[in-house]
């Protein structure tokens, strides 16, 4: 099902570095002319054009190597810790540049060009086979790491980028929580291995299916890297807290400014008649039928006065009182 990816797990390929490299530098910045940037840009353009889910997955992660020389041997370290728990690894590929064998070329032949009879001495051939040892170790581990796999790389006739399937290695390392992967290149020669220039540094691509990408807000989980409500802005933060609160009733009570000891529902005075309520907060649950037509509650002082007065409760007691007083006064 992964055949639609541009590179089969084990294949040799040649990327023209001039044009894609320039394109990558234009898109990724001047410091990104390396092959991993070129490769990722090609993947992006391919799947943006098609608009389909690539190979059953939705995520491709690239990992640049950090070079270390251990015992005069090159060791490339890959930090795979950015792989999310929700990302199910489908395929992982190790990409490396194979130097061409150093077969004699005309200018390499150590003999005089015009002396046909002179014996010519050929330069020594390049390594016929390169071995790669993969080890994995946990972060901050002091050990050398667990050997996860080894493979032999045969240099092609000319310099080419190749890809090897290391899915099993990466999956096993992840399963064991050892997300630092090292690739040690060993040519078997006595001479110290000469590190390649940065443009030819190996890299790893991990193709994955992020199971959480269909979750709500998934784009913000991965791409929003700032707090939308910074510390100096309390109002939106409070609003967000209320919206995400699992117990809104407690928070509303804490924010109520009115008396809390009067056996009244807090916030009743502040509720406008057409105040929108949260979807899970049904109006009917708060205000059952008989209480839907609640009128504005009188102030506390007025309620006390209401208890002391013997007049029937009306919406405007003071006016009634004044009017009756005036009637009595007129009779008198």
């Amino acid at each position, binding site marked *: 099902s992964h055949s639609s990816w541009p590179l089969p797990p084990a294949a040799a390929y040649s990327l023209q570095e001039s044009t894609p490299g320039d394109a990558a530098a234009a898109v990724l910045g001047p410091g990104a002319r390396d092959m991993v940037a070129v490769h990722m840009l090609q993947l992006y353009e391919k799947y*943006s054009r098609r608009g389909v889910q690539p190979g059953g997955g939705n995520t491709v992660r690239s990992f640049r190597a950090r070079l270390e020389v251990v015992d005069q041997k090159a060791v490339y370290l890959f930090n795979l810790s950015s792989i999310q728990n929700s990302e199910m690894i489908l395929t992982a590929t190790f990409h490396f540049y194979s130097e061409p064998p150093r077969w004699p070329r005309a200018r390499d032949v150590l003999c005089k060009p015009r002396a046909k009879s002179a014996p010519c001495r050929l330069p020594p051939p390049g390594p016929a086979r390169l071995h790669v040892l993969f080890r994995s170790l946990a972060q901050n581990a002091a050990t050398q790491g667990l050997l996860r796999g080894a493979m032999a790389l045969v240099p092609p006739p000319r310099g080419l980028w190749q890809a090897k399937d290391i899915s099993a290695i990466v999956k096993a390392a992840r399963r064991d929580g050892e997300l630092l992967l090292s690739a040690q290149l060993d040519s078997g020669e006595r001479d110290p291995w000469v590190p390649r220039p940065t443009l030819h540094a190996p890299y790893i691509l991990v193709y994955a299916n992020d199971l959480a990408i269909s979750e709500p807000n998934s784009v913000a989980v991965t791409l929003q890297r700032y707090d939308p409500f910074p510390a100096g802005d309390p109002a939106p933060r409070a609003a967000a807290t209320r919206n995400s609160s699992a117990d809104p009733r407690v928070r509303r009570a804490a924010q109520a400014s009115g008396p809390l000891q009067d056996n009244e529902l807090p916030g009743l005075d502040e509720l406008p008649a057409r105040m929108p309520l949260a979807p899970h907060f049904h109006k009917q649950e708060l205000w059952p039928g008989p209480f839907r037509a609640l009128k504005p509650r009188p102030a506390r002082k007025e309620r006390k006065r209401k208890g002391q007065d013997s007049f029937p409760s009306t919406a405007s007691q003071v006016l009634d009182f004044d009017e009756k007083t005036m009637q009595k006064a007129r009779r008198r």
Partner: protein
Amino acid sequence: QWDEPRVCARRYLKVDFADIGWNEWVISPKSFDAYYCAGACEFPMPKIVRPSNHATIQSIVRAVGIIPGIPEPCCVPDKMNSLGVLFLDENRNVVLKVYPNMSVETCGCR
């Protein structure tokens, strides 16, 4: 877009990642056509607003008025398209993710 009809429809919206502050790590695209849905879902709803069966029933119930408080159906995205985004993760590694439901293709009353 003031001249466009009031009925529920797709409207043009171009989102530039720089406008929302994501351009420091989003490599490509720099912007994309997200679109949005807006407009009324008034009774009777024409076919052009792609009402769901539920929305049709809700619209009728609201129009009859026997049950108070029933709102109009909402004008929301119907079909949506995914978008591939090339970005840098926290370790400055290049990541490609194809996010679903990033741009609106059609709108409907739901």
